[in-house]
């Protein structure tokens, strides 16, 4: 019967952890609101979370767009529909790949860095020192990072989509000779501002929130040892990536019908 006890223990631990994450969420949101008047703290974090993640997003976006261009062209040309290449590439990127892939890369690059940074701040007693200086870490450390993550994510997703569209154009026009005007005009006529672009933006805001929340929670609750920080960093990437994919399914079903 040990397995029953172990299972029960796991369930209790998971529920307790979810409760702690929910409490942390509330404290982080309050901290984020209170830190708004000191927006320079958010700007500092926007640099380390957003600007430093740009390179991997831009390079990945270019290759993803080029692959979409190749795959899209090979399929569309069978139906003499290569004139729709621009539309296909844009819809894939704006609706799905832009927000989801950039969120996964964001989790790997910025999420892990956030967890490691906060975990090490805890291990080296910097968080305790702030508390003893009557400085609330939720306002000074967590809040600015949460806001920066929520702002950075849609911008990064937009960059990935934009660069991906250019990648698709390079393959479609330069490699396969799809007419330039047709490529852009099919996109212009087929992509809807609200149904496609706005939904993509909403997705990326939600993903930014999820990844940053998970990363900050894991860092703040990491065991203050090198092994503890390492495990927390791994958990951040795994948990936030799975959460992004799961929430993406729900959001897609809600936004584009089906549920």
């Amino acid at each position: 019967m040990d397995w029953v006890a172990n299972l029960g223990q796991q369930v209790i631990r998971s529920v307790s952890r979810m409760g702690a994450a929910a409490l942390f969420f509330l404290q982080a949101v309050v901290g984020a609101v209170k830190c708004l008047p000191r927006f320079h703290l958010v700007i500092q974090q926007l640099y380390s979370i957003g600007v430093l993640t740009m390179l991997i997003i831009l390079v990945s976006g270019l290759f993803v767009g080029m692959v979409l261009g190749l795959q899209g062209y090979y399929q569309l040309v069978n139906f003499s529909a290569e004139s729709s290449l621009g539309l296909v590439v844009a819809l894939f990127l704006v609706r799905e790949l832009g927000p989801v892939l950039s969120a996964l890369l964001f989790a790997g690059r910025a999420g892990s860095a956030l967890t490691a940074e906060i975990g090490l701040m805890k291990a080296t007693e910097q968080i305790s020192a702030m508390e003893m200086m009557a400085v609330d870490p939720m306002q000074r450390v967590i809040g600015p990072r949460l806001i920066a993550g929520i702002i950075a994510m849609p911008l990064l997703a937009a960059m990935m989509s934009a660069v991906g569209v250019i990648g698709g154009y390079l393959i479609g026009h330069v490699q396969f000779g799809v007419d330039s005007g047709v490529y852009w005009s099919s996109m212009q006529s087929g992509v809807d501002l609200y149904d496609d672009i706005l939904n993509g933006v909403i997705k990326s805001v939600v993903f930014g929130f999820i990844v940053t929340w998970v990363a900050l929670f894991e860092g703040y609750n990491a065991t203050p040892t090198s092994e503890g920080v390492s495990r927390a960093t791994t958990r951040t990437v795994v948990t936030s990536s799975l959460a992004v994919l799961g929430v993406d399914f729900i959001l897609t079903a809600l936004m584009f019908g089906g549920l």
Partner: protein
Amino acid sequence: MIIPRGKVTVIMGPSGCGKSTLLGFFGGRLLPQKGSVKFDGQPVPRKRGVALYKMRRNMGMLFQSSALLTDLSVYENVAFPLREQTDLPEQIIRILVLMKLEMVGLRGARDMLPSSLSGGMARRVALARAIVLDPAMIMYDEPFVGLDPISMGVILKLIRELNDTLGLTSVVVTHDIHEGCAIADYIYLLGGGKVTGHGTPDQMLNSDHAEVRQFMKGQPDGPVHFHYPADEYLADLGRVD
């Protein structure tokens, strides 16, 4: 346990006896399961909030790891509490920071980053940061650990001088007998989750109490046993798992 105002009180005890935990209680970072803690006659609030933070503005703390903010320079680390807690103009902040850095002898190191400081220097910067708001009480968590003799002498001198010149109340947690006795006005010795002895350094050094004597003389065996509790030795050796 009473920490007298204006004095240097040293809390000693073997590793793991709860000395640093006690500082956690004093500062309201940890909650005692029993008993209560009062600071300046007022109970330390049990919940994090405005009241606790207001009380902490009168406390300074020097952490064992120095706990300097690694992304800020020495100057910015010392200025940090002033920027967070006051609306002072930059010119005044500059004067205050340079005054505190001068007190710890590191005015010339203001532009350095924590990563390029030695252990002793980092602790002096943390000390400057801890006193920059002129607190009523300052707590030192193992301030002598890992320091060379010169740095240790500097920290000893600073703790005593700052206490006397600024009229501070100092609480020093340490297991270093010589340094602790050299600096203390009064000593509390902890062991097994309770106060095993207290008195002036002379009283403690000449105490007849077995636990106090074992600790103060550094005897390897006594009331605190050398061996961690275990099964009978020969039986353990002969056991086949």
